[in-house]
């Protein structure tokens, strides 16, 4: 018996030292160039003209207005989308009905559609060339090139965010708990709030955080429907574009730094929520069912 235990593991596939170091090295270097550098340069450029310019840009009424509009959009679009996500997840996971698979596909459509296409599509509903546009105009209701249009376009691009976190999770959890609660006489709302919600709260929050990040950062769809009126219909991302094309690069980066900060907080929140177990259940279609998996019941 040797005096000092050796504690070795047989190598798994790809555990060779050289290969391992090489791969980690490549990944870290490319990652630094592609992901880290863009984040760093925001800070560097934002302060390139000094603290004064940075502060002036942020404190400028147009910037403040853009921030306000972005927050307002998020305050409307995120809760509405959350309610939709919960309703969609409840109907899809707790009931069987025809066309369920089709509904699932339709909910995910905004993910595959270009934001520009989304913006243009809204033009043809609420614009003067669109279905409801002329009628709305007769009543003096302005949706496009105004705040409602911005909110609607934001809701389109982020529609799937909450639903897609909840559906796989609630699918995996099944219906037993809700059926037990109902059989004990609980009302539907009571069942949802005291049985379902506690089990999905982290996933729900996860979806909300991601949805919010996307709403605040949406550019393409919003730029089509907003009309880009400085100080009126400019969200923060649009304001950045405006500053950038006005040859105020430092100002554009200063405004960007706010959004970059939100992005970093989003990532931190995401990691924290993942530690609570959110975001772990993914659509099963992408993973092979390992027939040899002990966790799986085989028939």
């Amino acid at each position, binding site marked *: *018996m*040797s005096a000092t*235990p*050796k*504690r*070795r*593991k*047989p*190598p798994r596939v790809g555990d060779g030292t050289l290969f391992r170091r090489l791969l980690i090295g490549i990944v870290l270097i490319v990652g630094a160039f592609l992901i880290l550098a863009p984040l760093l340069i925001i800070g560097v450029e934002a302060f390139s003209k000094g603290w004064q310019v940075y502060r002036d840009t942020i404190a400028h009424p147009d910037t403040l207005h853009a921030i306000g509009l972005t927050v307002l959009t998020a305050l409307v679009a995120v809760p509405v989308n959350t309610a939709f996500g919960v309703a969609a997840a409840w109907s899809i996971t707790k009931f069987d009905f025809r066309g369920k698979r089709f509904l699932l596909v339709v909910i995910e459509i905004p993910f595959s559609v270009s934001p520009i296409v989304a913006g243009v599509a809204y033009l043809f509903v609420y614009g003067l060339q669109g279905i409801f546009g002329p009628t709305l105009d007769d009543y003096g209701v302005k949706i496009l090139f105004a705040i409602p249009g911005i909110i609607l376009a934001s809701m389109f691009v982020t529609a799937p965010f909450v639903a897609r976190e909840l559906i796989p999770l609630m699918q995996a959890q099944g219906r037993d708990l809700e059926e037990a609660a109902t059989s004990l006489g609980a009302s539907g709302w009571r069942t949802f709030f005291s049985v379902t919600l506690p089990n999905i709260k982290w996933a729900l929050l996860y979806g909300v955080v991601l949805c919010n990040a996307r709403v605040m950062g949406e550019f393409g769809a919003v730029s089509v429907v907003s009309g880009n009126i400085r100080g009126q219909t400019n969200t923060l991302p649009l304001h950045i574009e405006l500053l950038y094309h006005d040859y105020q690069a430092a100002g554009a980066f200063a405004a960007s730094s706010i959004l970059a900060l939100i992005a970093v907080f989003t990532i931190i929140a995401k990691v924290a929520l993942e530690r609570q177990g959110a975001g772990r259940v993914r659509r099963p279609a992408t993973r*092979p*069912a*390992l*027939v*040899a*998996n*002990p966790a799986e019941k*085989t028939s």
Partner: protein
Amino acid sequence: MKIRLDHVVKTFETFRAVRDVSLEIESGELVALLGPSGSGKTTILRMVAGLEYADGGHIYFGDQDATDIPVRDRGVGFVFQHYALFPHMTVAENIAFGMKVSRVKREKAAIEARVAELLRLVRLEGLGDRFPAQISGGQRQRVALARALSVDPKVLLLDEPFGALDANVRHDLRRWLREIHRELGITTIFVTHDQEEALDLADRVVILKDGHIIQQGTAEEVCRNPQSAFVMKFLGDANVLAAEVRDGRAYASGAAIDVSGMADGKAELYARPADLDWSAQGPGIPASITRVLDRPDGRRVLATAETGEQLEFDVEPERALQAGDGGFVTLRRAKVFALG
């Protein structure tokens, strides 16, 4: 191929899974590693396979020190507990995998012929182009065995081979594995926590507890002569009675048995249900029957001794006994182990 483990040690983090195990397995022998979970049996099997490396000690294959040989060069066939069949390959492709990736190049036709031969051996002719998801658990088990045999291993290792199967499938496969072993004569080690499985199947049973070998021998040896209370209890149902040894005799609740050579002192008396009987008259352990359980092969009687100890024993189906009867439990044979 003869296998020898020489003072083998394995520690995971702070858990000492295997503590100084030495074991010899003769060429062509079929050995069971039997023990409760955490006894180190699977770790030993994985070290023999090269799926874990020993922290100390040596493992010899024949005369060759195989301790540090990686699994892919060790020439073992391993059947995993949940089979680990490649889900994206058909049954035939699973079986052919080892021959295709081997450094020894084989003709395509030779591989096909060998696959067909193995399918016949495991009685799965005609299922070659099914995917693992499309066959039953027992069939997967046999595919896993065929795959492990495909590379003509020097040793066959099976980790809980029947653990994931229904009781009746398990029974058939057990007999069938024994037949295959007789046919091929390959040195085989399997791990199980099911004592019946180990006793039915193995030439020799190695009983493990907390990383140590507690006892080893043929089924007959370990059954007839368990050397510790642990082995006695682990191998099957046993009644336990507090006993006292005096002058070469053990006394327990009115029964006594010869234990010549044992030192005086407190002890425990162990008796299988079949080792006890019932009699209306003494001498014996005064008791009253609390329940009678009828089974296909006899009657199991539950009784409470006057001392309060619970006893179970078997009687022939014809015996007319019922709850409430009073009488004596008699001792046909028993094992006595000193306490402490």
